């Protein structure tokens, strides 16, 4: 029988056993000095008892040394182990759980932990199954969920090692509890013999967060305290990781403002080089200083280029040992400066003017929009090139000059994300509009109209407003054929309709947007209505789509009918082609970076779309601080668990742990016995 220790490093404390000897030899109490009448009696007494006393003292010294020796041996977790495995030996089932989350990409030796882990598992399989017929192994590869697993327990080394060869790292976060649940179920489905779970991980705090024993039992109904847990720790105490936790990007007229949240999980205060790239071109570079274990909020303002509709980029910290979370990819849609033209049929600066109310309502949009107000009666309108505008308000115009009608038609057909808003009023001459829009203004009606129905895709927050207090005294009845009614009044009359042209839309409002026919302009709903309508026109095609995802999110896009195929170019430049039967594509992004969708229309027109995918930082995967024994004890309660550091003796340690007998109890009994013997002996002395 061999004895092996699970914590052999504690054997370095064995010289402590010599402390009683050292104390005995060198640190005896300074004796009192007494002049005695005749020391001959003492000498004789000493002569008589000396052999017995010396023997007792020696015994006591040996017992003290032995107690210390056994204490150290016990703390080193002794295991007795026999090489002989008989036929009747119990079957031992082992599940090896291999962590492939992105924190396992951490590399302090040049080799990522996942690669070390794979090599380790292959060797472990070989060590465990060598010359053994009673061990069965299953492998679960996990991150935030089970990535892959062997369908049953096996004792075949080549099969299990071959399985490990197929394991690749993922960019997912870790959820050990979810994966452990699967492992416990796996044991229930294929029960037999002694059971052990070996978890190969960085055993960092992020793998189990905020759990205690009660919670783990709630989370894992199959949790069994009798199943041994062995954590193989690939982590080190000196972790070197600082990362970008979150980025919020807001766009201004010509700039993107990025609010970064950075966190330093290193034990030192350090300077980091922070850079921002837009379209693969570095436009910002600065040294920043982050204290240890501190989050830092940092604002970066970068100018956007006018001619790009979509801008991809990344914020980058100078790379540390975990590189994947040092880059944060993003795609922003360049709003540029939008231009709005307000053509007022009754232009004046007075409170009765439509433009007066409109400009007030668009106050919050001023930073992104350039707003120009002109009168329909002026030469300016005649001379104005309408195509350079994005949104045109035509308010209460009695007629539209002929040369402008063709310009407006072009406006609606040629460019995307543009729109015209036509509003009614007392000056409207319906016959004059026949040349452009046949029978759109039917007739004026006077009544007390209320909004009864509203399109919530545009006006999503309309419930927050008291719409029943909006009164429209007079409206134009609008011809809503071939149009979409966005707001409906009582009696079924439309208040706002959308006429969709080839690329853009014309919105017609049935009442005035000043106070002439309605109290609308004096209500809080009015600025909200204007703002939402403008945003809807500008973002009509894109608002529903998302440009930034995290790993594991489902990327989902809907396209128009005339799209034939879509090529998805991944960050590693692999191309995947989707042939569209339905007008949607759906896939899961599994790699961080900038993805490019090349959309092929039937009429050979090509369009591209970018989106960014990042690793999930919310779960603090980058925090590599190790779980302590106490934390694990709190979580796993009475379960026998051991955390083993990755070293050359680990295979032996695991084998012993699985196959050996724990000698700690035996040693504790010996300690108690020796202590009693020591007490008795010292009393007799």
């Amino acid at each position, binding site marked *: 029988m061999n004895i092996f220790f699970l914590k052999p490093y504690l054997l370095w404390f064995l010289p402590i056993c010599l402390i009683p000897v050292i104390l005995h030899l060198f640190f005896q109490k300074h004796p*009192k*000095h*007494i002049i*005695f*009448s005749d020391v001959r009696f003492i000498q004789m007494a*000493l002569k*008589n008892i000396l052999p017995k006393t010396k023997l007792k003292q020696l015994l006591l010294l040996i017992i003290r040394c032995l107690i210390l020796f056994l204490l150290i041996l016990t703390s080193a977790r002794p295991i007795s182990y026999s090489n002989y495995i008989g036929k009747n030996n119990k079957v031992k089932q082992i599940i090896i759980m291999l962590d492939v989350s992105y924190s396992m990409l951490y590399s302090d030796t040049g080799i990522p932990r996942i690669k070390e882990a794979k090599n380790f598992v292959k060797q472990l399989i070989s060590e465990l199954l060598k010359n053994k017929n009673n061990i069965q192994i299953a492998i679960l590869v996990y991150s935030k969920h089970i990535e892959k697993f062997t369908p049953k327990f096996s004792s075949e080394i080549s099969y299990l090692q071959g399985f490990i060869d197929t394991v690749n790292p993922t960019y997912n976060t870790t959820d050990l509890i979810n994966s452990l649940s699967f492992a416990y179920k796996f044991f229930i489905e294929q029960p037999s013999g002694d059971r052990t779970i070996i978890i190969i991980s960085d055993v960092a705090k992020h793998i189990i967060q905020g759990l205690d024993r009660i919670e783990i039992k709630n989370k894992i109904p199959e949790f069994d305290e009798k199943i041994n847990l062995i954590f193989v720790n690939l982590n080190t105490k000196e972790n070197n990781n600082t990362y970008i936790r979150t980025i919020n990007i807001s766009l201004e007229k010509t700039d993107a403002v990025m609010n970064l949240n950075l966190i330093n999980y290193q034990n030192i205060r350090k300077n980091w080089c922070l850079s921002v790239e837009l379209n693969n071109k570095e436009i910002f570079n600065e040294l920043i200083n982050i204290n240890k274990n501190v989050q830092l909020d940092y604002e970066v303002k970068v100018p956007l280029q006018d001619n790009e509709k979509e801008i991809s980029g990344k914020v980058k910290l100078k790379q540390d040992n975990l590189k994947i979370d040092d880059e944060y990819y993003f795609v922003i849609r360049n709003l540029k400066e939008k231009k709005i033209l307000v053509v007022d049929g009754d232009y004046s600066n007075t409170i009765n003017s439509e433009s007066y109310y409109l400009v007030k309502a668009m106050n919050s949009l001023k930073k992104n929009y350039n707003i120009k107000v002109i009168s329909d009666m002026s030469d300016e309108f005649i001379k104005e090139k309408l195509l350079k505008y994005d949104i045109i308000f035509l308010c209460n115009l009695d007629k539209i000059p002929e040369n402008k009608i063709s310009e407006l038609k072009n406006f609606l057909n040629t460019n995307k994300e543009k729109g015209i808003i036509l509003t009614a009023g007392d000056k409207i001459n319906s016959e004059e509009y026949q040349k452009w829009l046949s029978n759109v203004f039917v007739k004026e009606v006077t009544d007390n109209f209320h909004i009864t129905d509203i399109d919530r895709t545009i006006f999503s927050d309309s419930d927050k407003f008291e719409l029943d207090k909006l009164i429209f005294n007079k409206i134009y009845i609008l011809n809503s054929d071939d149009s979409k009614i966005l707001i409906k009044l009582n009696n079924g009359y439309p208040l706002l309709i959308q006429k969709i042209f080839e690329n853009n839309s014309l919105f017609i409002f049935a009442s005035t947007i000043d106070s002439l026919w309605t109290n609308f302009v004096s209500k809080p709903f009015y600025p909200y209505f204007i703002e939402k309508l403008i945003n809807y026109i500008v973002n009509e095609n894109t608002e529903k789509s998302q440009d930034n995802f995290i790993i594991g999110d489902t990327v989902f896009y809907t396209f128009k009918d005339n799209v034939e195929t879509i090529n998805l170019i991944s960050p590693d430049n692999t191309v995947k082609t989707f042939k569209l039967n339905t007008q949607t594509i759906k896939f899961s992004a599994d790699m961080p970076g900038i993805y490019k969708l090349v959309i092929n229309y039937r009429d050979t027109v090509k369009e591209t779309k970018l989106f960014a995918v990042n690793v999930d930082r919310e779960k603090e995967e980058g925090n590599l601080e190790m779980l302590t024994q106490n934390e694990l004890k709190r979580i796993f309660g009475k379960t026998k668990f051991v955390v083993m550091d990755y070293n050359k003796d680990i295979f032996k340690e695991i084998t012993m742990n699985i196959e050996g007998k724990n000698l700690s109890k035996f040693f504790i009994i010996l300690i108690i016995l020796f202590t009693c013997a020591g007490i008795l002996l010292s009393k007799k002395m």
Partner: protein
Amino acid sequence: MKFIDPVTLLKLSNLEIRARYVVEGFITGIHSSPYYGHSLEFAQHRQYSMGDELKYIDWKVYARTDKFFVKQYQEETNLRAYIVLDISKSMKFPAEEKIDKFTYGLHLAAVLSYLLLKQDDSVGLIVFDNKIVKFIPPRVQSGHFSNIINILENLTAGEDTQISKIIYEFTKFLKRRGLIIFISDLFDKPQEVLRSIKSLKFTHHDVIVFHILSTYERDFPYTGTVNFESSENPSFKIKTDTENIVREYKSIFQTFIQEYKIGFRNSGIDYCLLYTDTPLEVGLSSFLSKRK
């Protein structure tokens, strides 16, 4: 009868008063002394020689013969007592205590001297360590007690002990048989001591041995590791854990006492064991009971 604690006795101003106090108190306590004194009787005339005291000149004979003669008297006491006091270094123990064996021995010697002189017995004093330090021949005069007290008061502890050698040495001073009162801790080889004291008995002396021992020697009240140094031989040191040896020590010490007890009993020598916490009256009582 109340005895006086030796420590309390020390509060009295000097040795003489203390001795008187003990004896007077003791005698009053027992009402009478068992001894009766004898007066001095004229023996013969001797021709005057230089140095003789003038008071001893017989002036009547001078008147008749015109020559100086001095009277010589014959002692007619029944007892010539020698108090043999050991003042070796081992008696000066325990050094840190008020009553050590040396002090106790001095007091005992003083008390016995007074008692004997009061009964008109002649008392001599022999003080010794490894040699005879003082010798006062026995006398019975009234001033003799003061002489003895003076000597006792000026004594200091001497060297190591060689009892048997001393006994053989002072035997030559003993012209007549008498009473030898031996006050010592007897820390010497018991067999040799017994043999030499027995030799006194063989020469028809009465011998009474007061064996003075300290309570510290009896009880061995030490704890922990102690480095013991011999009082008589400072180079002789023994380091030991006292708890380990206390039982064995006591046993050996009792064997030592027993050896003397049995040895003296077998030789018909009176033996009285006194510890330093024993009232002196106990010693007196023991003495008188043995002298009846």
